[in-house]
């Protein structure tokens, strides 16, 4: 059954998934986790990027204000009772803040349901990292078996891997051929981000329709820009870009484009190999210890292939992995003559007037600079 995913709330959706299909629901913190494995266990995932806005409870006070809003808002949300619809939480060890959040919840309480952690290795490409990742995935599968009372069916895992490969392929198509997509930024990102909580088969369906709707010739007439950063929040920022006459031609948001797997080879016969390779197939991310040079090369090639005329670096305050790379990104694009604008957010619900003005001025500058003399 397909719901009107654009209007139903996440919690209502999770409840209906439970009622109709008996699916458990797991809240998942950013960024990388084995979604295929969860799908194979018939677990609905609901990603928790904050949520944005002011913390919804006093529990945010358990974490200092100089720690990123994702961790503070998440603990407040989980402890406030607003996440009652989920049956547990999975916290990947993405950064110090999320590691601290996991330790707080597991050791000192505030969340009565199950806490899983996923400790993915740093050091992409190393044999030791691959071996550890596979062991970590198997260990998580063991915990999920115990939690759900179900044995992991290897065929079901193979099916889940294939399903998510199709999803990734559609997401890649929409992002790589952005100029052919008639959706505006707010619509496109709402669609892509519904993948954070829709049951994958339903998400695949709406992605397929969106890909079918691609125009034969470019329909995006604005200024193409590239965005790198953490999360496309608030959505007002996307609307401001549209209003200013720009569109995101190259996406390196950790929540969106950076996570899209582009696996060159066919699916491996062994699903565990497939799961491991899936992790290494995504774009370079500063949280996973890629060599800085590799990330810069990737960003440069993304800017080039997308035809971006400017780069927007959209980071979250206190997000160290992203913040450390900013000087390198500035230097990289200064060398190739592509203007860069850095915007810092803190999971606000709306962008400030100042930020909107900066975005408008930046796009106007790109338009002027790009106009043939």
């Amino acid at each position: 059954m397909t719901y009107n995913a654009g209007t139903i709330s996440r919690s209502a959706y999770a409840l209906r998934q439970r009622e109709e299909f008996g699916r458990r629901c797991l809240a998942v913190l950013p960024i990388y986790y084995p979604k295929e494995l969860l799908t194979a266990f018939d677990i609905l995932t609901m990603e928790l990027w904050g949520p944005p806005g002011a913390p919804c409870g006093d529990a945010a006070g358990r974490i200092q204000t100089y720690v990123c809003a994702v961790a503070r808002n998440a603990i407040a949300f989980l402890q406030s009772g607003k996440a009652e619809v989920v049956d547990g939480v999975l916290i990947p060890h993405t950064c110090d803040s999320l590691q601290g959040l996991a330790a707080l919840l597991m050791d000192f309480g505030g969340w009565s349901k199950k806490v899983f952690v996923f400790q993915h290795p740093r050091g992409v490409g190393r044999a030791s990292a691959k071996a550890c990742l596979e062991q970590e995935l198997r260990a998580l599968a063991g915990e999920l078996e115990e939690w759900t009372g179900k044995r992991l069916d290897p065929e079901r895992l193979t099916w889940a891997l294939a399903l998510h490969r199709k999803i990734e392929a559609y997401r890649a198509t929409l992002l790589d051929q952005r100029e052919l997509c008639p959706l505006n930024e707010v619509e496109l990102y709402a669609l892509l981000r519904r993948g954070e909580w829709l049951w994958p088969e339903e998400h695949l369906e709406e992605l397929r329709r969106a890909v079918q709707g691609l125009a034969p010739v470019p329909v995006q007439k604005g200024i193409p820009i590239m965005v790198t950063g953490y999360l496309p929040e608030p959505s007002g920022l996307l609307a401001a870009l549209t209003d200013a006459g720009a569109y995101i031609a190259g996406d390196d948001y950790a929540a969106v484009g950076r996570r899209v797997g582009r696996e060159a080879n066919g699916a491996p016969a062994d699903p565990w190999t497939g799961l491991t390779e899936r992790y290494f197939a995504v774009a370079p991310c500063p949280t996973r210890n890629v060599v800085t040079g590799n990330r810069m090369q990737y960003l440069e090639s993304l800017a080039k292939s997308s035809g971006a005329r400017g780069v927007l670096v959209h980071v979250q305050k206190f997000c160290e992995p992203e913040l450390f790379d900013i000087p390198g990104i500035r230097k990289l694009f200064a060398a190739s003559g592509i203007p860069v604008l850095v915007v810092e957010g803190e999971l606000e619900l709306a962008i400030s007037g100042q930020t909107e003005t900066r975005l408008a001025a930046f796009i106007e500058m790109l338009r002027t600079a790009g106009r043939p003399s």
Partner: protein
Amino acid sequence: MILRRLQYEMAGHAGLALIRFQDWQKARSRNKGKGKGKPSLFGPPLECLGKLKEMMSLHYLQGRYADGAVPVAWVTSGFPVEILRPLGFHTLYPENHAAMCGALRLVPQLSDSAEQEGYSRDLCSYARTDFGCGLLHTTPVGRLPKPDLLACSNNICQTVLYWYKALAAHYNVPLVLIDTPFVYGEAKPHHVQYVRTQLEELVSVAERVSGRRMNYDELSAIMVRSREGSRLWGECLAKAKAKPAPWTGIDGFFHMGPIVALRGSEECNAYYRMLRDELQDRVNRGIGGILNEKHRLLWDNLPMWFATREISTLLAERGFSFACTSYTNAWAEAAGKISPADPIGSAAHACMHIILNQDLCNRLGILTRLARDYSCDGAVLHSDRSCKPYSVGQIDLKERLTKEMGLKVLLLESDHNDPRSWASEPGANRLSAFMESFA
């Protein structure tokens, strides 16, 4: 190369005379201007302090001539440096160097230049200090040797990984990461194996960079010395269990230089034997780190390097002193984990089981044990803007230490290296109010 090596060796030997001469000159000029000041609140300075300064000065002096003479590695404080020693690496600790800049109050200027480059002020102030030194080509130690290898372990934080990635891009040298999965309760066997495999990978990279083969017998001998050094350091710290404590936790911050930077060497161990004996002598004679010790406190997290004197003076005026710190204790905890019979395996174990790579229950256990063993009646938890892994959890820890141990606990927000995050007057007010609560 030969000339460079000669300079390096000369600095290691003749440098000592130069340092002693400079110290003599400084002491002479200090004595000339000496008048009758306020009576000191502290016990007489440790005689070992001169030796400590000599050792650390010599280490940095020799470092000036290291690149081109011997392989140079820049390493993080939690890195199992013992593995690099048999391969002849001169090791430099950017954290230790940054702390020195912090104590000398050089950080605002250094950080400004890093911020102008685009590094956010929200980033770790050690990293900003290090970048600033690189950008301004300045250092209080004269010159830092360029690295041939960057060796980093994220057992203290993920920040060092981002920091060292930036260094690797700048210096265009290999970066070795020892990725240590966080330990909840007991370490998982596949995590231990992962760290062990990475250490084996490290050996081959370090061999390639140094052009030497690993001598495992020498490595075992270094592990023996390292274990002994860690044990001796623990003995030095434990002397503060006496009342009055013969030195303060703040003194301990400065005396940890050798166990961090020279671990595994005989000179490090010789130094701590000397320090231990001097501390025991002070215990025997009833000499305290402060003159009028009334209340003993526990300090959690890194120090505020720029304000150690300010804070210890404020406390000493009212008879308060830090008897122990969780930070200095971390280097004593390793002693029981190092096994010369299995240098790589035990290094993996030691590397994973440090305070910042373990869960909060373990941390609470350490704080509780320290507070009990050192007879503390209060604790100051330094909520350090630049060290999130050490700081997240402190708000809950404060509550538990208060409820479960009856300690009076203060959460004091600042930064370990950047004085711009410390408001002296409001900070002093908070500390004063905290001390008044003991009345």
